[in-house]
């Protein structure tokens, strides 16, 4: 048996489309015939003469245009703020929390404009990591759809008018005893909660309800039942030797993904002599990013998760003397669960079972398992609990009840969009019409805000003051890094004003903090205050009635539906952000859409093909969506992502994909993202075209990912990474030499530095944070769905996703890999970030006719846009397919209106002024953030000090939540880059047999599985 790697089902089936893309990077020919000739059979035309005319006119126009130099104004500050020097970036510590994603961040501002977010390494929660959504939020700040002023009934008004009317109505309602409801997503800001408390004191009929679009409410309820603690625990995955997850996508979406990623990566690294790694087992239905990183992935239907949990509980209980509960697990599944239980038991107190399913009974059973394993107090901390999902489904259900009875007199909506995100959104919308006072604090139009009588736009995160408590005892601050762009006001100030306590929220916040922070200035500078030590985590015993819980499992029939979140769009709040829309989904690699993922087996059986549009019906709701055949999807299930199908969000998001929130079910008051009894029909609609990137820029089927198993690697550090040997003749002797000794070219002489990067395939989770970081740092344009479909996405780095499955060598020999379709139903997955490899012997450099790409003495492969004439020879000759061609002018071009960072004055504020916005017709590619290198060198020269390792970071390396990318200087003997370089171990160059001597190297992926054992 040998491993076969494949990029997608297209490759397995050897489809013509795949082969066309595989063999020709630029498969679309230029439409020269159309330009040159009106009709191909009309020979009387003289196209050559026309061509020369065009050419002559072009040259003349260009020279004339060049003669006239425009008068450029330069307008200095009248009174320059002390800390601003034009051209030098300022950094401020702040916090991003939108009720969904939390990150402690550093904000880079240039001349008063925030242009980039990076992780704050001081935070014990996110430890300097940021995810794709937080990275991209900087662009949301400059979205021109934002409200420009407060509005009354959709008409622009002044704040005094709004205050007068709202305060008056509130007083009237309170006097009558009418119910006032503040609906928000999770609020963990102590000062904001106090402001809301003050408001409730002034208006005693007011109540604050928190509700999360993607709810974890069942977990809180279960913890209440099990341990009497109404909280969601924080986890220390770094202490875990065995991690078992039941449907929790904890690396990219679940509760605190950045925190989990940092911890998880620590257990997966095999550097510095570390010889052990955690073992990760995932039970899930749809292939998630987390599942694709698991050592062992077991596909189960959502309805089987209870059987898994109870079987696991029973297996653990049997060894711990606890009473078993009823379980429906049997056969193969029972066997798998038993081995998993053994592993858990062998790491008692150093293991963790996570469950991402919003089901109270299931969460109770999982609590029972963790309590038996003694994980509370070590890997699970219920005392320093997490405050990132405070929503309560029960409270929301209560509000729905009040709304339906028409009892609510005033509804104030803050930081949430229930009309869109609640399964009964339509009912909320209907009820809102008859509510006396509806106020929306949203800073931009959304489905709920557009229905409210009063719009009191809140400030964006980057414009406002606030405090947060992501984990009990860990506080962080956000501070404004730009003056408010529009006539908006912080929600807190609006509430303070209406409570009869008008003032400045900053002062309120400081007063509230005076008791907490030892030094406000220090807290502000660090962006956080964390009480050292915190509460000591305690062990807990589960008190819930597990046998009752186990009995809630019901037999199901028919197809089951899993509703999940995508890494880019998440809960859909930032759907109007084109960076996120164009970020390929880590698994399907599809951009700009959501779709139904179905298993290959179901697709075979039902005769569905990729792109077929099918109707899915759950209860009274139904949606139509295209099919994506997804290896790894549990048979008998389909999956669909949330966050799409927005209708009032802006030109980027509106009417893209379908809204899956309307399919979310209710189990009692709990929202349920897993549904059974789903009926699915193929429609007669035409096939839908999806823009996926998975088969773009392929490397001609060459073996480029290398992997091994932990056992094999410990025995032989070079396992899975055999040396590339070439057959050569020395004199008349035939011999074999390592590839790097066989070269046509002389070596370059090293300059002062020799930059390079290391990428650890073992740590990379494929989350895509680096791709967005690179987009933000390097002014990479968004090209839109149509262009992505034509393989013209501009991302400087991509994350290749390879599936692998065991193949019979005989199948390989016959060349027919179709037979692999069956084992491909649950493939292994490898993620590989690929950017320009900065080859020392770069094939692109030798073919450029104008020397627009050349080699620097510091090891960089330089790309000079102004010299490039667009022959694309370099791209054709690049073995890694990392060069991108500007087919169009993406800036100031109405046809690329979704590229908002280059097409309106507001959006352009996000551009990095140190990087050129490329013109049409030139090649571009990863520069290894040369602007950061140059800046770092200059700072060192000015300080008169050598550059220390880590002082310069590329955007991708900085943002990586698992530290999979290391940037450094090969000439610095002490650099991490040199220490990680181990050609006798895991290090290898991509396509080493070509000996192009890349300055980027990879580290073999190691799986914690037994050799030859089926994953």
């Amino acid at each position, binding site marked *: 048996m040998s491993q076969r790697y494949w990029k997608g089902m297209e490759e397995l089936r050897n489809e013509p489309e795949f082969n066309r893309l595989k063999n020709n990077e630029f498969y679309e020919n230029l439409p020269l015939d159309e330009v040159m000739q009106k009709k191909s059979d009309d020979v009387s035309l003289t196209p050559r003469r026309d061509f020369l005319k065009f050419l002559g006119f072009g040259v003349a126009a260009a020279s004339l245009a060049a003669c006239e130099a425009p008068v450029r104004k*330069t307008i200095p500050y009248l009174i320059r703020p002390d800390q601003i020097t*034009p051209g030098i970036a300022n950094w401020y510590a702040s916090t991003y929390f939108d009720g969904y994603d939390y990150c402690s961040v550093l904000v880079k501002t240039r001349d008063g404009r925030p242009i980039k977010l990076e992780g704050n390494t001081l935070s014990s929660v996110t430890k300097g990591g940021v995810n794709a959504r937080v990275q991209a939020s900087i662009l949301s700040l400059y979205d021109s759809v934002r409200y420009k002023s407060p509005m009354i009934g959709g008409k622009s008004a002044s704040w005094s008018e709004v205050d007068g009317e709202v305060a008056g109505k509130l007083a009237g309602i309170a006097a009558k005893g009418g119910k006032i409801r503040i609906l928000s997503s999770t609020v963990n800001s102590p000062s904001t909660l106090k402001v809301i408390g003050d408001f409730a004191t002034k208006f005693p009929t007011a109540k604050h309800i928190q509700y999360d679009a993607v709810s974890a409410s069942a977990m809180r309820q279960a913890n209440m039942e099990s341990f009497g603690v109404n909280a969601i625990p924080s986890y220390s995955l770094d202490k875990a030797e065995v991690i078992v997850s039941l449907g929790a996508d904890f690396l990219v979406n679940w509760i605190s993904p950045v925190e989990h990623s940092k911890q998880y990566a620590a257990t997966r690294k095999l550097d510095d002599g570390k010889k052990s790694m955690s073992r990760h087992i995932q039970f899930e239905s749809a292939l998630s990013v987390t599942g694709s990183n698991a050592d062992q992935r077991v596909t189960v239907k959502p309805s089987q998760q209870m059987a898994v949990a109870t079987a696991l509980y029973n297996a653990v209980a049997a060894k711990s003397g606890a009473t078993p509960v009823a379980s429906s697990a049997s056969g193969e599944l029972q066997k798998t669960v038993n081995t998993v239980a053994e592993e858990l038991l062998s790491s008692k107190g150093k293991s963790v079972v996570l469950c991402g399913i919003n089901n109270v009974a299931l969460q109770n059973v999982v609590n029972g398992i963790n309590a038996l394993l003694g994980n509370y107090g070590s890997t699970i901390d219920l005392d320093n609990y997490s405050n990132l999902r405070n929503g309560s489904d029960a409270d929301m259900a209560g509000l729905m009840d009040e709304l339906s009875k028409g009892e609510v007199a005033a509804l104030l909506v803050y930081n949430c969009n229930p009309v869109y995100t609640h399964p009964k959104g339509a009912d909320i919308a209907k009820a809102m019409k008859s509510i006396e006072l509806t106020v929306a604090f949203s800073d931009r139009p959304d489905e709920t805000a557009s229905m409210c009588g009063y719009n009191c736009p809140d400030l964006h995160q980057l414009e406002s003051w606030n405090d947060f408590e992501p984990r009990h005892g860990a506080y962080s601050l956000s501070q404004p890094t730009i003056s408010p762009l529009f006539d908006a006001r912080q929600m807190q100030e609006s509430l303070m004003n209406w409570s009869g306590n008008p003032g400045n929220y900053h002062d309120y916040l400081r007063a509230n903090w005076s008791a907490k922070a030892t030094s406000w200035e220090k807290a502000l500078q660090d962006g956080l205050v964390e009480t050292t030590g915190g509460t000591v985590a305690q062990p807990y015993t589960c008190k819930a009635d597990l046998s009752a819980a186990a009995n809630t499992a019901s037999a199901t029939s028919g197809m089951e539906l899993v509703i999940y979140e995508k890494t880019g769009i998440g809960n859909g709040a930032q759907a109007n952000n084109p960076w996120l829309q164009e970020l390929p989904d880590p698994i399907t690699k599809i951009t700009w859409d959501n779709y139904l993922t179905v298993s290959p087996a179901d697709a075979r059986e039902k005769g569905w093909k990729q792109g077929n549009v099918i109707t899915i019906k759950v209860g009274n709701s139904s949606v139509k969506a295209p099919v994506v055949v997804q290896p790894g999807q549990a048979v008998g299930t389909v999956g669909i992502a949330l966050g799409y199908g927005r209708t009032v969000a802006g030109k980027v998001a509106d009417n893209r994909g379908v809204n899956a929130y309307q399919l979310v079910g209710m189990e009692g008051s709990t929202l349920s993202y897993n549904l059974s009894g789903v009926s699915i029909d193929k429609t007669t609609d035409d096939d839908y075209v999806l823009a996926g990137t998975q088969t773009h820029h392929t490397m001609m089927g060459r073996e480029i990912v290398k992997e091994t198993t932990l056992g094999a690697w410990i025995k032989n550090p070079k396992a899975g990474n055999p040396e590339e040997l070439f057959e050569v003749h020395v004199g008349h002797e035939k011999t074999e030499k390592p590839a790097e000794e066989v070269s046509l070219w002389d070596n370059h002489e090293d300059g002062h530095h020799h930059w390079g990067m290391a990428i650890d395939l073992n740590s990379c989770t494929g989350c895509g944070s680096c791709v967005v970081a690179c987009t933000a740092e390097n002014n990479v344009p968004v090209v839109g769905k149509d262009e992505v479909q034509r393989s013209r996405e501009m991302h400087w780095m991509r994350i290749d996703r390879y599936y692998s499955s065991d193949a019979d060598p005989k199948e390989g020999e016959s060349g027919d890999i179709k037979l692999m379709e069956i084992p491909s139903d649950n493939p292994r997955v490898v993620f590989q970030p690929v950017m320009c490899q900065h080859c020392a012997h770069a094939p692109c450099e030798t073919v450029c006719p104008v020397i627009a790409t050349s080699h*620097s*003495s510091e090891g960089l492969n330089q790309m000079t846009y*102004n010299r490039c004439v667009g022959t694309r020879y370099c791209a054709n000759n690049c073995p890694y397919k990392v060069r991108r061609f500007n087919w169009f002018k993406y800036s100031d071009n109405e046809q690329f209106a979704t590229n908002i960072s280059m097409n309106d004055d507001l959006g352009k504020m996000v551009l990095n002024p*140190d990087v*050129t916005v490329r013109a049409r017709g030139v090649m571009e590619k990863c520069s290894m953030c040369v602007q950061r290198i140059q800046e770092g060198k200059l700072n060192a020269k000015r300080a008169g000090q050598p550059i220390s390792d880590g002082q310069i970071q590329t955007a991708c390396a900085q943002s990586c939540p698992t530290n999979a990318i290391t940037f450094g200087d090969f000439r610095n003997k002490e650099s991490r880059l040199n220490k990680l370089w181990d050609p006798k171990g895991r290090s290898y160059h991509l396509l080493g047999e070509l000996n192009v001597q890349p300055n980027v190297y990879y580290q073999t992926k190691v799986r914690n599985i037994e050799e030859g054992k089926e994953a």
Partner: protein
Amino acid sequence: MSIIGRIKKSSLTYSLFIVAFFAVLTVSAQDAASTQDGEALFKANCASCHAVKEKMIGPALKGIETRRSEEWILKWVKNSSAVIKSGDDYAVKLYNDNNKVAMPSFNLKDAEINSILAYIKVEAAKPDAVPGGAGVPGAAPVQEEKPIGLYLLIAAIVLLLLAGMLGRVQQILERTVRQREGLPEPVPMSRKAAAIHWARNNKKLVAVLLLVFVSWGSVKGWYTLKNIGVMQGYTPDQPIKYSHKLHAGEMQIQCIYCHSGAERGKVAGIPSANVCMNCHKYVRKGPETGTEEIAKIYKALDYDPDKGTYGPNPKPIQWVRVHNLPDLAYFNHGQHVAVGKIACQTCHGPVQDSMTVVGQYSPLTMGWCIDCHRRTEVKMAGNAYYNDYHKELLSKPGADSIITVSEIGGLECARCHY
């Protein structure tokens, strides 16, 4: 009278004359000395708040000697607050009229104060200077250099005349020879035919001429094309007639004082108006344009110089950018000024000597950058950033002690283009 007596008499007269002469001389010299001291003292002590003829922070001092007694002035200058405290009506009114800003005490001798008063009196008597009149620096006639082209032109005309004369002589000689030999007259040809005939007989000359012409044309064309977009000498009008020559030259203000970004950042920066106000809060009148141009700063800041207050309607000054690098080129002042220790004048020219209005001195073309990078030595010694690398470069075979920017990769594309 004896001769001696005559001599004596005359010597006496001489002596008297001499004594009188010297006396007069001394007196006038003393006068001059006291006003001169007065000027120095005035500038050192008073000028930051007072002018002779107009109000600044404090009132105009013209006619002070008639307004107040000498005794009062002496007391006031030595300790003004004491005078105010004593309840002197005039002093209290003066204090209130001037925004209650007390004049500091000056430790000056009576004689010194008197010399200042003398200077004020002399200055007050002078007629008002006409702004922008004669004596404006830079207006002095410059010795015009006779262009070399003129000489060449004259030489060419002389040569042409000579050639014409010689040709005529040859023609006459030919005709004479023909007549003497009895040869027939040549058939007259059209001009074109004649030219072709001539060209056929002088193929080499024609070839050389053609070659010269084509080469000249190509070179000329090349440079014309190359200079498209090169704005060397671009000197746009600016909203304020700010003179670098006056500020950086005569007043010797350091470049960095206003262009403070030059040592640190990418751009040197146009100073914000508050930097101007560091001086122009006090200097309210310039030697060239009087108050007119300085008033524009006040207007931009909405500043009232009499009250010393800022209004609510400031309006930024829109300068015209002189040095425009294309977006595709990255240039950092910090690298050149702070690290490379390049003088500002290397690229910006003799700003302090001749630029009343600043213009683009250098071509700012890539060739110009590259040339400098080839020539300029890197300041490696003493900068720890270069330590090991410096040693490494020096120990290379064939290395000399001068390491230029180009030798450490200063000509590579991605140093400036990204």
